[in-house]
């Protein structure tokens, strides 16, 4: 039995198929990359996994349980955390309060939530901005806050949606280190990323989609050499 799998997921928006039959399996403890050109359906796939969209057809199965009909907050409680590509900080709350709100998904008292939040903030390296309002963070901080908040919900499976986009080279290295650290801590990761350097370095396996359909799957090296992938990214001249 696969730890996590999506089975021929389809999502239509009106007459447009954003995702059209994507299937993949993720093993426990791996970093699984999801790539594809703009508009290929990566984020829509994430939205179906985390319950923001109902799939038109297909299934999402987490630890043997169908979850595609569940509401978003229930999916979070089951142990699937996510970050947003377009960051959604709780602006007029401090960084600590953002993370405390997330920690309340696992504990009920203020003291426990604070402790859990502190741990998550230290783990993700946001201690120096703990008491700053979330809206005053620069983009790198906001991306990191997304991860910190998701970690405070103690996910077994973490969906990262372009957490490295918009970061400078130093911040990129830090982001890669953090993602590896999260995996080493026992969390399985599915990551969407456009920055090839990031996705090629950290992924154990990569799944490439284009126009909502699978075009390749394999190790980073295999996928990078795949004809269909090169065509999708660079055009037929280079294939």
């Amino acid at each position, binding site marked *: 039995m696969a730890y996590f799998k999506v089975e021929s997921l389809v999502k239509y928006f009106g007459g447009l198929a954003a995702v059209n039959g994507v299937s993949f399996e993720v093993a426990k403890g791996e970093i699984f990359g999801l790539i594809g050109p703009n508009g290929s359906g990566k984020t829509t796939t994430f939205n179906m996994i985390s319950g923001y969209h109902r799939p038109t057809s297909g299934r999402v199965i987490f630890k043997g349980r169908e979850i595609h009909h569940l*509401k978003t907050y229930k999916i979070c409680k089951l142990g699937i955390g996510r970050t947003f590509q377009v960051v959604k*900080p709780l602006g*007029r709350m401090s960084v600590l309060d953002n993370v405390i*709100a997330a920690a309340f*998904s696992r504990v*009920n008292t203020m003291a426990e939530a604070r402790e859990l939040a502190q741990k998550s903030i230290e783990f993700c390296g946001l201690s120096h901005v703990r008491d700053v309002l979330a809206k005053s963070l620069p983009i790198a901080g906001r991306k990191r806050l997304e991860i910190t908040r998701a970690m405070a919900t103690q996910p077994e499976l973490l969906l990262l949606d372009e957490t490295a986009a918009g970061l400078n080279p130093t911040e990129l290295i830090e982001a890669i280190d953090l993602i590896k650290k999260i995996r080493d801590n026992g969390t399985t990761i599915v990551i969407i990323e456009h920055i090839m350097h990031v996705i090629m370095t950290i992924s154990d396996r990569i799944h490439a989609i284009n126009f909502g359909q699978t075009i390749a799957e394999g190790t980073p090296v295999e996928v990078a050499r795949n004809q269909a992938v090169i065509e999708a990214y660079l055009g037929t001249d280079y294939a």
Partner: protein
Amino acid sequence: MKKRLYPLILLAVLAGFPLVVEDNYYQHLMILFLMWVVIGSAWNMIAGYTGQVSFGDAAFFGSGAYAAGLLAHHLHVSAWWGMAIGGLAALAVGFPFGWICFRLRGAYFALATLALNEVLRHGTTIAESFTRGMLGIMIMPTFVSKVPYYYIALGMAVVSVLSVRLLIRSKPGYYFVSIREDQDAAESLGIDTHFYKMLSLAFAAFWTGMAGSLYMNYMGFIDPHVVFSLHDISIMAILVGIVGGVGTVYGPTVGAFIMVAVQEMFRSGFFGLFKFLAETTGSESVRALADVLTKGHVLGFGLLVVLVILVLPNGIVGDWDKIKKKVFRIHSPA
């Protein structure tokens, strides 16, 4: 340390007020003030903390008032029983409303609350056989003195402010604010946004309903246009929240004091100042101005809101540090 004492000092002053000031008029104003603390705190919970702006607080206020009034009118029991069911009646209105209308977000939800307000106002006007329509409901006040009402209102105000304070520093409070800041992010953090919006609305409806049943008992008379009034109740509740400070524990208390004072100032023509001027000068234009000002309290509200939003967008409590710096030139240590 000093800051923690302020609410206690205020409470002591309020508790001693009717013993010192025996004038009926000022006692009446203070009862209204305390009632508005309750309504303002309730509005602040759903709109200020949870971000679901309500334009229809009068729906809950009126439900509470009519529950108390109808009970006394039809069953001839003491209207005090109505106090007990006033809050529950407002809950009974709020629950199905929230269940359906929380599918709407932002301005659309606000419009739905406005509709609820109007539906109930017209409903009570039309259902004459049950509610006596525009004739209104009159009951005999239990006490002649205003003092008992004062202490009941004070008790309700204290409990409502304390419950806001308690709630806001616990899990539901964090969840309410998270929903206000970003509902989608809140969902992803494991927050059942529908449930917590309902919880917040239940709090608001209950306290507003309680204030409504207090109003029925105290004033002794209600009709649909008084208790389901859009500008005198619903908009007033919003003003109390905005002037005092949206999303602050003590904001509604400050806002209620100012708004009741401003309302009374306009209603009484600046405490008779304009009437006095008109009589002494004998000028027709001053008399006309006095007339407009006494009737134009809604205009005064409007100007006040424009002023507050321009100068103190976070309200008096929310922008207190700014006021200290600008007005009193006190610089609090950063």
